[in-house]
């Protein structure tokens, strides 16, 4: 498709549009002679049975309700068709300036630069294209709980390929919140992005060491949604205050970020004994070979996110305040002494001149 010029695409779409006007309802009816049967399936070479049933109720609800089968399955020209239809190419309609009003944005370009788009371009047969996530005959608006793209359904959608991660995520504090119907909790796309998912090893990734703090702080930072649930929102500020945060500001990528300690797909509440930050697990969490191999129980004897400006930090707060008073008073005193000394010198040299 990419090889075709815009003009050719325009002509092709024009023809499709004519088809639609000619009689889409008839086409649908004809196709449903076979595809309306629930037990219609094909058997792949691997022996897997693939259902070929098309649920018309879902199709009628979908955003493509007014389209006919052949609008997408353009390679079907005769019914019954003799060959397997090609995979549908969404960009046949979803390109900028298309005449049928299909939504088009930068998302398609983002997809092409994402890890999924790159793998598809490489020819990886497992890499997902649009319909792997958005669905085929069931593309419905993402606010509908039946949509693959409904927030609570996203983990399952991604989990169709990333099954291990889905299993881990489901047990995490975020996954459980989503399962309990809390839509404020993050799903895959909140951290990884949607069409612009790139490998965490890439510096631009939203979950790369340099960006993960920013990504977590969308909810756990100031103005974060977690405030609603009594979870602290000073996490980013206290992280930046810590040595780890300072090192990150110095562009050190080896230093611990949110995920290094809290985990990522397996983030659990701090009072969960399975949590990586449960006090008993802290020596192990801090003691990763590349971090603090010398870590022991002492590492758990105190808070991690410490805010010297908050009175709840106890001794640290008073030390910080005490030093502030000491520094300001000492320096003021020294400045006064210097000014007095200079004043004396000027007076002395004046006195000498007059003598």
């Amino acid at each position, binding site marked *: 498709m990419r090889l075709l010029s815009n003009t050719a695409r325009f002509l092709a779409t024009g023809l499709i549009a004519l088809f639609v006007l000619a009689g889409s309802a008839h086409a649908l009816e004809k196709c449903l002679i076979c595809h309306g049967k629930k037990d219609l399936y094909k058997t792949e070479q691997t022996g897997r049975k693939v259902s070929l049933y098309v649920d018309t109720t879902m199709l009628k609800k979908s955003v493509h309700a007014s389209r006919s089968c052949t609008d997408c399955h353009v390679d079907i020209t005769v019914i019954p068709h003799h060959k397997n239809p090609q995979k549908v190419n969404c960009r046949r309609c979803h390109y900028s300036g298309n005449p049928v009003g299909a939504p088009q944005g930068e998302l398609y370009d983002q997809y092409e630069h994402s890890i999924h788009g790159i793998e598809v371009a490489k020819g990886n047969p497992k890499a997902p294209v649009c319909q792997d996530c958005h669905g085929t005959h069931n593309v419905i608006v993402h606010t509908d709980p039946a949509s693959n793209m409904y927030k609570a359904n996203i983990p399952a959608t991604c989990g169709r390929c990333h099954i291990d991660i889905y299993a881990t995520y489901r047990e995490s504090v975020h996954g459980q919140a989503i399962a309990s119907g809390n839509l404020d909790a993050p799903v895959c796309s909140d951290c990884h992005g949607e069409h612009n998912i790139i490998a965490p090893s890439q510096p631009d990734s939203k979950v790369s060491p340099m960006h993960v703090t920013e990504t977590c702080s969308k909810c756990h930072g100031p103005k974060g949604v977690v405030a609603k649930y009594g979870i602290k929102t000073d996490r980013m500020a206290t992280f930046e205050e810590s040595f780890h945060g300072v090192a990150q500001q110095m562009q050190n990528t080896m230093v611990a970020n949110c995920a290094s300690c809290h985990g990522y797909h397996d983030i659990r509440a701090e009072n969960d004994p399975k949590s990586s930050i449960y006090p008993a697990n802290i020596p192990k969490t801090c003691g990763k070979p590349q971090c603090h191999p010398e870590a022991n129980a002492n590492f758990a004897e105190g808070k991690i996110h410490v805010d*010297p400006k908050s009175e709840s930090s106890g001794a640290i707060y008073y*030390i910080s305040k005490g030093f502030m008073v000491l520094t300001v008073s000492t320096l003021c005193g020294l400045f006064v002494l210097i000014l*007095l000394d200079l004043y004396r010198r000027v007076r002395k040299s*004046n006195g000498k001149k007059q003598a």
Partner: protein
Amino acid sequence: MSDKNMEKTSRRAELIHNLASEIVGSAGTIVEYDDPQGTAEIVREVKERLTFETNFLLNETVTRMAPTRPKETKAPEKEGRTFERFGMNFRTQHMLMFLSVITLIITGMPLKFPELAISKFVIINIFGGLQTSTTVHRVGATGLIIVGVWHLLYIMFNRTGRRDFLLMIPRPRDIKDFIHTMLYYIGRKPSGPRFGRFSFIEKFDYWAVYWGMVVMIGSGSIMWFKQFFPKYLYDIGREAHSDEGLLATLAIIVWHFYNVHFNPEVFPMSWVWWHGRLTEEQMKHHHPLEYDGIVRHESKAEFEKKQAVPMEEGGAEEVG
């Protein structure tokens, strides 16, 4: 420059100055003198100087601040008698200390202000990253710890060190000296207090460094060997390290640099840290009590020596 020459120059300058005030006072009338040749020359100089003075008011201010005595040179030994202020041992301690402290400040301060561009420049561009800079910081820390231990041994087992340490202990007299200095500064006393070997200012400096060493080495060690201390002690240590580091840096830049660099008397730098010696004049001016003590001790020794000579000859009654 010889003293004779200096004296001549200053007398001449005084003459010119007096003459200038006289001329200005009599509103432009030039006074005639008996000696026409000398006067003509002086009048010409006065005119030049007047133009100079009226044009450079700012310069006048600077002149006031200029050293009242000849600046100390690199080797005061060449100019008469000198007194040892700091021995080789102590000077080496100071050198190791400032090398360590400068290293520690350069590698430490950026971490207190990580958001500043200069901090990022120092750590990332100069040191090539935090791993190098923290290693360098530990090298500086080792230097500082060595100085600390060395100094403790010095004040315990070295004669001079022990004497100086005892003299460093604050006494009630220091409070009196402080009040005296303040009164002198505001013009209520004609002259400053007479100090001994260590003035209250020097004692403050010494004990400030002492406190700084204890806090910095203590808190730094907790962070360096954090596995031996509970996390809350680490946090306390980190806060103290960061705050005391800033306090010490500011105190050095403001106070110590004023005393040994920016003070008009020594600008651009006092060289005592290098040669460790004070001239007789500096001794009389800054440490008169110590100077008196030395002189008294010497004359006593001389007296005893003189007394001892006739004693040996059996003529004690001659001396009386």
